[in-house]
């Protein structure tokens, strides 16, 4: 029992420490633009940031219902590989997805101090359903100004038009964060693919 409570606290603590960091970031970004005093009031965006492969990805916080240590996942035979199965999260049975497999992202070895047996699940609330997304490192919380997000980077034209789940690219302190639109993460085609199985 005790162990479980600890596990549950772990990610939220991590998110909190993340918030501290972002507060700094926000202050830093305000300092960067001393010419604009109204910058404090400018539109902010709050992201949950996690790693897939070697890159950082972000999801808007209002699309994330909760972050938890991945519970027991029951495999569902004859579903696409990126569906890891279903899990019971607070009485809701939701699908757990591996975005690295979904996007064909090459996984990278974990940093040495991380326990490979513990992963985290972001519970995403999409329009019609909730879905769990597995990540291997504790997700972080990040506040940044909307202006930091490049909504239409030119490279988007180079990738397949159907892969429009990328909402934009955020650039903060030399970090590049790919902002995902979770509502588009499962396209109609894939839902159909689920069906044919």
């Amino acid at each position, binding site marked *: 029992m005790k162990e479980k409570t600890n596990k549950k606290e772990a990610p939220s603590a991590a998110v909190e420490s993340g918030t501290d960091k972002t507060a700094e970031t926000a202050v830093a970004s305000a300092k960067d633009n001393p010419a604009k005093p109204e910058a404090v009031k400018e539109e902010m965006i709050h992201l949950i940031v996690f790693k897939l492969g070697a890159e950082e990805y972000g999801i808007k916080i209002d699309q994330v219902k909760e972050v938890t240590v991945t519970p027991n996942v029951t495999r569902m035979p004859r579903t696409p590989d990126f569906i890891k199965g279903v899990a019971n999260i607070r009485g809701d049975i939701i699908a757990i997805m591996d975005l690295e497999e979904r996007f064909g992202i090459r996984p990278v070895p974990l940093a040495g101090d991380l326990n490979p047996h513990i992963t985290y699940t972001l519970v995403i609330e999409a329009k019609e359903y909730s879905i769990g997304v597995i990540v291997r490192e504790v997700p972080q919380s990040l506040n940044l100004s909307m202006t930091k997000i490049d909504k239409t980077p030119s490279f988007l034209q180079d990738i397949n038009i159907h892969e429009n789940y990328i909402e934009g690219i955020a650039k903060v302190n030399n970090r590049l964060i790919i902002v995902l639109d979770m509502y588009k993460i499962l396209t109609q085609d894939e*839902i159909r693919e689920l069906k044919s199985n």
Partner: protein
Amino acid sequence: MKSREQEYKEIFIAEALEYFDALNRLISELEKRPQDDQVLAEIFRMLHNLKANAKAIGYLQISDVSHKLETAFGLIRNKELSFSDEVVGVLFDGIDLLGELIKSIDSERQVEVDPVLIRNLDIIVDSLSDSTVELAKVQKFSTSRNLTLSDLIYIQVKKLDHLMNLVGELIIDRDRILSLSRELDSDELKTVGSHLYRITEDLQYSVMDARLVSIGTLFNKFPRVVRDIATAEKKEIDLELSGQDIQIDRNILQIMTDSLLHLVRNAITHGIEKPEQRVRADKTKAGLLQLSARSDRESVVITLTDDGKGIDIGKVKKAAVAQQLVPADVAENLPDSEVYSFLFEPGFSLAKEVTEFSGRGVGLDVVKNAIDSIGGRIRIESEKGKGTSFILQLPTSIAVKGALLFEIDSIFYAIPLIHTDSVVALDKDELHEVGEVLVADIKGETVTVVYLDELLNVEESQMRLGDKTRLKGQVQNIIIVSYNNRKLGLIVDKLYRQQDIVVKPLSKPLDSIDLYGGVTLLGTGKVCLVLDVPAITRYFVNRR
């Protein structure tokens, strides 16, 4: 349990009191705005309904008074009677009388209808503009006004659905607590657990009971429907209904509505012959259509029987061969029950002409899908020249089902009992490799057997369903399931108990995976996948 009549009476009273309240409100409004046609129309409609309802259930006094009031308001609406003070007084009195009559239904006290009031009502209705006749003063029979609220409430089915889901969650947690109390071996927890068990069980049945409606609510729509179709088809049909009092979950009945309509259409257009043909075949001129319902343990069986020409097995076989559903030589020796199952294949049709009511390509497969979706079963019995029966076995409740639990490759699965025929343990040597499948002799019947682990977990290109070496162990546990009149044996790794489970539908986007009918949580907190037998059967057939 209350008698049906008592329940009808209560419903009538509650509705009537609602009408009474509304009438009081409306007539007060009308007094202020006598020109408001909408209010008038509403009053008229309510009195009309009240009259009809009262008459149907046999409260003639109420229907009589409603009738008189309705006439009076009809005159006011047609501007033949003015809504003057005198008239208003009489109308208020009349409505008060209605209220008294309605309230008296459930009490010992008989209400004496004041003849003066009735006379007054007659006067305003009959004398029209002739106002010479005096309206007599009415002795108020009731001076004390009691404010009462109705004993019945309307509730959205959605709310009941929500309640049912919550009960489902509660049952899952209850099972978890029970299994914990055994694990911890705590007597106190066990006592609380068993109390909780009784309460939740009671709660579950109460909520299920609240969702029940009598099948009559659907059956009683059919006399008119049958008449219309029969007229269009120039046929004579006698419809016999029975078992209208049988109760079933409202949502199940809702899902079955279209299917039943479809089957009835089919029976009239394709089953029952034209009058002249019937006479030639030595049958009564009018065809007989019987729609009946009965309870059978945990399910409700609806049977639709016609005394028409029956299904021509030969024709079905021919059509099945022509549509390449089965090779001709195999079709020859198929048992009748399997031949009938072709009728449920998508696109399968024997109809030569399209009529207004059936034969437009929407086939029995739609009916079958609807029944599958609620976990029911359908079967056909037919005799050439004598008639056809469709037998629908439906669960009484959607959420809670008896199921058989088992394990394959360390994952828990359940199959609803409605689809299981029997469970057998066979030695590996009793399974035979025939073609690309395994078969076994089960109680004299040759049944195809499939190793579920192979079917579910081996990559599709590597799958070898006819290879005995893939089996683990010597003795094989086999669940015989039945779908669409075909039997199929499913080999499982470990067989557990039979248990009532609460099936949670899979949430999006997984709900489109039809291999699984849903999931359930076991007492241990583990997720258990509920296999959909129709889908498993289809998947197996398509693999082969």
